[in-house]
């Protein structure tokens, strides 16, 4: 019983994020002119997926006590790479996806190496590599465009039924056993897969725990004989990989590549906001990528609501800004509870 209480109190931030998301999302659906529908769910998951991935990408370095200002750039670079490769035979497309994801991981690996071997602060190292990645992306796609297999992009951005129907699985999606799950949006499935098969194992591995340890106290982690360098490189590489998944999905979603600098910046900044809203401490050590997914969901759900309600279009940015500021300020309540000022300084 007291264990439960300990666990609840240690995950209060995550639970708050989940609660806020549910609140916003239910509100949105209740006010949607056509009510809740699978089409709406598909649309919502499509819109959320890339940001959720980039937010997860940001989480790993943040847990380690660093900040990755290049996640948006990595996403963009992978987007431009994938926009050249996602066509042809199935084997070619699979190869293209592999290359794209590998490129994302490689970018993260480069970040990790610069941070570890160059001993440059992550925030500034990634500020610099972010520029380099964007330069490469612009080189690959001086102007937007691309040639992505239509079927693939259609199948990846709809429900499971469309995948089956497009590629002829489960009797073109008509099989009876398939029906209960046929409505699930593909991005939602991907999200769960990424969390269950990549994030959770990572967070329970020694390397993953070293990431938390480094964020909690690097000196102590070193003294404890943990593989710090490996964990740092792994953290950035995994971050790059997640950002790569985001970039790959964006390519499928938009059937194109676009080396858009403001967009890369927007994703990076939103990823930080999502991480914070999801309950991960920017100081490192505390939090989880699952929280960041909910942070991303919250950010997106806020803008969903703009489409339902009558808000002067020129007031929207203000409204958005105020909601964002309020959301990131939630943590301030902690300050009111702290009775020992010294506890504020950690």
């Amino acid at each position: 019983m007291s264990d439960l209480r300990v666990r609840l109190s240690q995950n209060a931030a995550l639970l708050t994020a989940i609660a806020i998301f549910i609140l916003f999302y239910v509100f949105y659906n209740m006010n949607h002119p056509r009510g809740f529908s699978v089409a709406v769910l598909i649309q919502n998951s499509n819109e959320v997926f890339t940001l959720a991935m980039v937010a997860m990408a940001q989480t790993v370095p943040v847990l380690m006590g660093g900040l990755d200002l290049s996640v948006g750039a990595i996403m963009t670079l992978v987007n431009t790479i994938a926009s050249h490769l996602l066509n042809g035979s199935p084997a070619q497309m699979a190869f293209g996806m592999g290359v794209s994801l590998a490129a994302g991981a490689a970018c993260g690996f480069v970040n990790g190496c610069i941070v570890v071997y160059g001993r440059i602060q992550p925030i500034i190292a990634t500020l610099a590599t972010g520029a380099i990645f964007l330069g490469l992306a612009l080189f690959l796609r001086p102007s937007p465009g691309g040639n992505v297999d239509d079927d693939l992009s259609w199948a990846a951005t709809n429900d499971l039924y469309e995948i089956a129907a497009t590629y002829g699985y489960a009797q073109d999606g008509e099989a009876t056993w398939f029906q209960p799950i046929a409505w699930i949006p593909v991005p939602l499935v991907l999200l769960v897969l990424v969390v269950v098969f990549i994030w959770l194992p990572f967070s329970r591995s020694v390397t993953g725990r070293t990431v938390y340890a480094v964020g909690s106290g690097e000196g102590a982690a070193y003294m404890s004989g943990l593989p710090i360098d490996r964990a740092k490189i792994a953290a950035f590489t995994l971050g790059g990989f997640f950002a790569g998944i985001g970039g790959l999905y964006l390519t499928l979603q938009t059937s194109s590549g676009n080396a858009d600098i403001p967009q890369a910046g927007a994703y990076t900044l939103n990823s930080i906001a999502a991480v914070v809203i999801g309950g991960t401490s920017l100081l490192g050590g505390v939090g989880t990528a699952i929280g960041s997914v909910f942070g991303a969901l919250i950010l997106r759900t806020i803008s969903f609501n703009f489409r339902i309600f009558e808000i002067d279009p020129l007031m929207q940015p203000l409204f958005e800004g105020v909601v964002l500021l309020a959301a990131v300020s939630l943590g301030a309540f902690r300050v009111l509870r702290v009775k020992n000022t010294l506890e504020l300084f950690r």
Partner: protein
Amino acid sequence: AVGAPNKVSGPGFDPGCFAPWNDEIGYFQWEKREGPHKIAIVNGFVGNTWRIQMIQTAKAYAAQPDIAAQIEEFKVVSTGTDVAAQLGAIEDFINQGYDAIVTIAVSPEGFDRVIRLADRNDVVLVPFDNVLDTDKVMQVNKDQLEMGRMYGRWLLEQLGDKTEGKILEVRGLPGNSVDRDRNIGFHEVMDASGGNWDIVEVVGNWDDGTAQKVTADAIAVHSQFDGVVVQGGTTGAVRAMLDAGHPMVPLAGEAENGFRKILAEQADNGLKAISIGQSPGMVSVAMKAALAALDGQVMPQLISIPIPATRYDELEAGKNFWPDLTDNFFTVNEFPACGVNITAREIMTNDAENLE
């Protein structure tokens, strides 16, 4: 697919307003349905004057009595420079049962999915300004290539007998299709002239400060140009020339009020310029096109909007520029051929409210 517009043959409805891009353009026809309609505008970025002027114009236009009668619900959202968010917003409006969605695409690619969905759900999707590289959807724009060519033709005309020289080209946002097309059009004309032109390209991002800085830089290094082309941020670029004491040479620029104000002053000093505008008022043409399509009219797939160009000797205070108003807006806003008569002045002095 289901519900997609029928491909029909021309001529289209109201060709004075909805001019087809060229002869090869196809025509679309949707089934006529009864109004009033639900219309949404999905804007991308909102942080510049052009976009704000566009939104104000859209609101003013929707409030005009004849248009208001055809609209049941009208919504404008700005999604920022994020493709996923913009695609999501469009899809959301499709799901919400809107009849037409007018949009400025964040990216010229990537709309295949929403186009498919719009067709399935019988929604009229109308990209304008930053259009899509596709022929599957009805779009409204000015011919950016042509605009580039006009820059070139103007310079060549003004340079007269000269066959060689240094030209400064201040470009726009890197990676943007408008920037790309204007640049291609301009180079096409200059190359075709057979002259020996040394074109110095700098990146001005379409904003005055950047344009001013890079122009100042370029002048500092190259000391003199024979002609200047500015895609946007013209006011800044000309100001840099003035600051550096650069002689006034032939110039082609945008339609900012500030630029026209300087032009009016400097025309006598030899600033022979043409001011070519990408008008924010285009949004009303796009809205009108959407309404016409919902009314079952035959519409060209790519609607070309005339390019309003004003020469230095055609400037008239209070008509095509306003010395008493700020530098910061785009002078060309109305399209008389389409019955769109909301002037920039009305928008910028908030007279728009009086239209309601």
